[in-house]
């Protein structure tokens, strides 16, 4: 990089929020990912929020086709991808239009002036040019002719002779990345190596991208436009080895780990659906772990095959999103009745129906809880952060195998695609979930030893799991009601009443086998408790920090288990004057809490397809505290 030294101020910040925005075809996700990678290697704490349209190539140049990537990084531990960007990179007028409303006055704005042509302005819906009409007056604007400088740089570089203009232009995201890397003092070796590897088969394209990246970096160094650069020192984090991980990747690894910990081969039956498909993609790579992945003809076949595999002694998994859960409902009911282990992963997205496929929401809680015919209780586990998806997947598998039951793992689009640094677990600290199948008769009948498939473990109420291939234990199970113990078809009214209650008691009993709900209340003077579940953990905790910094008192508790609730939940809720439940739905947990504990919780509900903002929740908390 350039050796030029210049009088320039370097400002130290404790945290920065950057956002890259451009056309879906502009490579903004890759740019954001790579900036994040540089940031992770530098040792900052971080949290990311990709935001992209559902269409693969949404209409180019329009606000609907804008793809964005936000990164929040810091020198201390952070909990959210940040409320508002400190700097926005806008690759075209549409990106500016779609993102400017999020930019606070005084924030920095880097715009690609080459893209502000009459045609593009029109497509973006601008009547006049925002670069000249005063729209951008409140911001620190850096006008950069990004496209032309990229093309010039690529053509001037060595080894790019065969690169045409269009290909050269496509490297403009790397120019932007280079400039941002310079502005924020990010290490650059990683990106150069990354580009060499990514385009190993097309060295001229690698050379073009690297040339653009370097040109962007050098441009920052030479231009007068930037008088200040920014530094964020590495964060002090717990010692250990870290990697950056998205929720879907952590969840996939958690499932592979669960296979190893239970000693069962994994079988994934799945049908592609956003934002869950990446788990299918990931698990299909891990054949050497004995993972079988089956892309079924539909969601029903996906879960059916997984349940069939569970019957045979595999750990059956199915992955989907809300619409897929709707299709799987009948089979989940069958799994409840068969009492076989099964993990149902629901990466929630905006609903109803097709809804908002690429946006996040928490609106499948009641579907997971009640979306079946009959009394069909299913335990529910929800991760709180991308990295936590690993542990939550293991926990879901633990409950499924120990209690012989389908279990819901409720993640969401924000966790799925968002990322954070993840402290790698140590093998020895992972739980031992070894499963043993039943191999001997468990009952003595008039004619001698017999196998009763519904003779339960008195403690867990789980039934024995005897897999095909076990001599002497041949048995039939099905969705028709079975006699308690023996497991033969039974239409006896009293038996049905008993079986319904036994299945309910089995799931309810899990409350004694999960950690109690913990409350964080540093001052121990809080009268308001904020209760959350799933991916809202970060924004809620960040909101709590803000109000505590103002001297107010608030307690926070976060549910990992939503069915059953931890045994102490009611006691905790009743010990506060007010309970606030923020959710990305219209009050689904609140409905459950009110029904189960008769606690008149207050809801704060938004379904905008984006996670809560810390400032927003801090405001709500303050209102509730001061009311």
């Amino acid at each position, binding site marked *: 990089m350039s050796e030029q030294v210049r009088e320039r101020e370097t400002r130290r910040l404790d945290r920065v929020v950057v956002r890259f925005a451009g056309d879906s075809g502009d490579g903004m996700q890759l740019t954001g990912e790579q900036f994040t990678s540089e940031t992770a290697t530098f040792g900052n704490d971080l949290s990311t929020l990709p935001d992209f349209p559902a269409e693969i190539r949404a209409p180019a140049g329009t606000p609907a086709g804008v793809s964005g990537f936000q990164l929040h990084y810091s020198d201390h531990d952070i909990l959210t991808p940040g409320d508002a960007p400190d700097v926005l990179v806008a690759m075209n007028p549409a990106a500016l239009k779609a993102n400017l409303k999020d930019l606070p006055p005084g924030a920095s704005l880097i715009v690609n002036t080459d893209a502000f042509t009459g045609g593009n302005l029109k497509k973006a819906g601008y009547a006049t040019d925002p670069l000249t009409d005063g729209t951008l007056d409140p911001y620190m604007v850096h006008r950069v002719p990004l496209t032309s400088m990229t093309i010039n740089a690529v053509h001037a570089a060595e080894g790019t002779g065969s690169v045409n203009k269009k290909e050269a232009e496509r490297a403009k995201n790397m120019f932007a990345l280079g400039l941002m890397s310079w502005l924020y003092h990010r290490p650059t070796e990683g990106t150069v190596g990354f580009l060499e590897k990514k385009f190993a088969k097309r060295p001229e394209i690698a050379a073009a991208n690297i040339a653009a990246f370097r040109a962007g970096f050098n441009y920052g160094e030479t231009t007068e436009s930037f008088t200040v650069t920014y530094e964020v020192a590495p964060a002090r984090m717990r010692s250990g080895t870290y990697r950056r991980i998205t929720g879907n990747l952590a969840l996939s690894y958690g499932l592979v780990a669960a296979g190893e910990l239970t000693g069962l081969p994994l*079988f994934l039956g799945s049908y592609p659906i956003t934002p869950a498909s990446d788990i299918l993609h990931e698990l299909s790579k891990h054949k*050497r772990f004995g993972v079988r992945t089956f892309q079924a003809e539909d969601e029903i076949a996906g879960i059916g095959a997984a349940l*069939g595999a569970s019957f045979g002694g595999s750990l059956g998994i199915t992955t989907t999103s809300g619409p897929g859960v709707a299709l799987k409902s009948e089979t989940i009911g069958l799994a409840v009745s068969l009492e076989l282990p099964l993990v149902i992963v629901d990466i929630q997205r905006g609903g109803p129906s097709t809804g908002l496929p690429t946006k996040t929401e928490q609106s499948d809680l009641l579907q997971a809880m009640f979306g079946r015919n009959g009394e069909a209780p299913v335990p529910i586990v929800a991760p709180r952060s991308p990295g936590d998806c690993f542990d939550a997947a293991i926990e879901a598998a633990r409950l499924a195998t120990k209690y012989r039951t389908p279990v819901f793992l409720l993640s969401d689009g924000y966790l799925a695609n968002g990322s954070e640094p993840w402290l790698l677990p140590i093998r020895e600290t992972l739980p031992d979930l070894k499963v043993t199948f039943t191999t001997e008769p468990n009952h003595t009948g008039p004619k001698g030893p017999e196998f009763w498939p519904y003779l339960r473990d008195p403690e867990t109420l789980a039934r024995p799991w005897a897999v095909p291939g076990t001599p002497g234990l041949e048995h*039939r199970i099905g*969705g028709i009601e079975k006699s308690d113990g023996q497991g033969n078809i039974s239409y006896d009214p009293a038996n049905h009443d008993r079986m319904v209650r036994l299945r309910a008691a089995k799931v309810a009993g899990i409350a004694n086998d999960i950690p109690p709900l913990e409350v964080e209340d540093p001052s121990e003077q809080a009268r308001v408790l904020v209760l959350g579940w799933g991916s809202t953990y970060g924004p809620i905790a960040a909101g709590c920090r803000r109000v505590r910094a103002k001297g107010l008192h608030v307690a926070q508790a976060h549910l990992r288990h939503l069915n059953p609730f931890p045994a102490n939940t009611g006691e905790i809720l009743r010990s506060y004057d007010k309970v606030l439940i923020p959710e990305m739905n219209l009050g689904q947990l609140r409905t459950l809490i009110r029904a189960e504990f008769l606690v008149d919780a207050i809801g704060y509900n938004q379904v905008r397809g984006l996670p809560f903002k810390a400032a927003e929740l801090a405001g709500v908390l303050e209102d509730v505290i001061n009311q």
Partner: protein
Amino acid sequence: MTVTTNHTGISNRLLDLVPAAPAQQSRKDFTSDQEVRWCPGCGDYAILATVQGFLPELGIARENIAFISGIGCSSRFPYYLQTYGMHSIHGRAPAIATGLATSRPDLSVWVVTGDGDALSIGGNHLLHALRRNVNLKILMFNNRIYGLTKGQYSPTSEVGKITKSTPFGSLDRPYNPVSLALGAEATFVGRSIDSDRAHLTSVLRAAAEHPGTAFVEIFQNCNIFNDGAFDALKDRSSRDDVTLKLAHGEPLVFGAEGDKAIRRADDGSLEVVPAGSPGVLVHDATATDPSQAFALSRLTGDTHGVTPIGIFRSVDAPTYDEALNTQISDAREKQGAGDLMSLISGGETWTID
């Protein structure tokens, strides 16, 4: 898993992965203690007796056999067999069995389904199981009616069928299950009749011998809601004249006197001609191209006065389960068994002291 071969006569490369029975088994070994609850006279009884009589012939350990069914009268079948079994939900048995068969190559997995279960609610799963060629034996009991729900018309009922749900006659054209299966390029397609024990046994045997999905349509009489649907094929006086028993390598000749034969008409379809006419076809169940098998499936009592039974098609092709399990063993051979910790610490890492 212990791999023991030497099954009594019936064998293929997949069946050889299933442990053999330690001793000769009998029909009694495959009879469960459950009381059979079909209507007296139902064709399902005959099929059950034939299957119970046939299973010992397989020579594989009883505990390594699993029967998966959907919902319907026919789908009660697994309860009456002393094997592993699952009575699942309506139409989904092929999907469930696919998971079981692909994850357990040491099992012999059978699906029992009805015409409504397999072709209506579960039509899509059936097509995809056939297309994938999963190692399943699918027995579809076709009574051309919904039995369990008390007699509505089914996707195999003839047009104009008067039932409770179609008092003015049904409107939709029926499926021909054999044509459907061949259209999905099923590698094994057979047809038999509940009451013809010897014939049904021979088709079951061939299905068991086939590595991959075997689809067997069994004409089954529902004496309560659709009695006599297959009488023409059962009646001693008429049956030989209207039934074409397919035999691989044999000329397509039928009739009480062996006086009728099948040959290709000018338009490419098949026609019935007097035996001895030029161009009588010889049945080749192993032909890779399914066209002739399909043409045979178009012969029906209504259109040609003859219904073929037996094995339409039996071709050896790679199975889904073998291919999946080979990918796993290949990956392990090439890359070694997976190591969890190196997997999760892959990618860029950094250490903080």
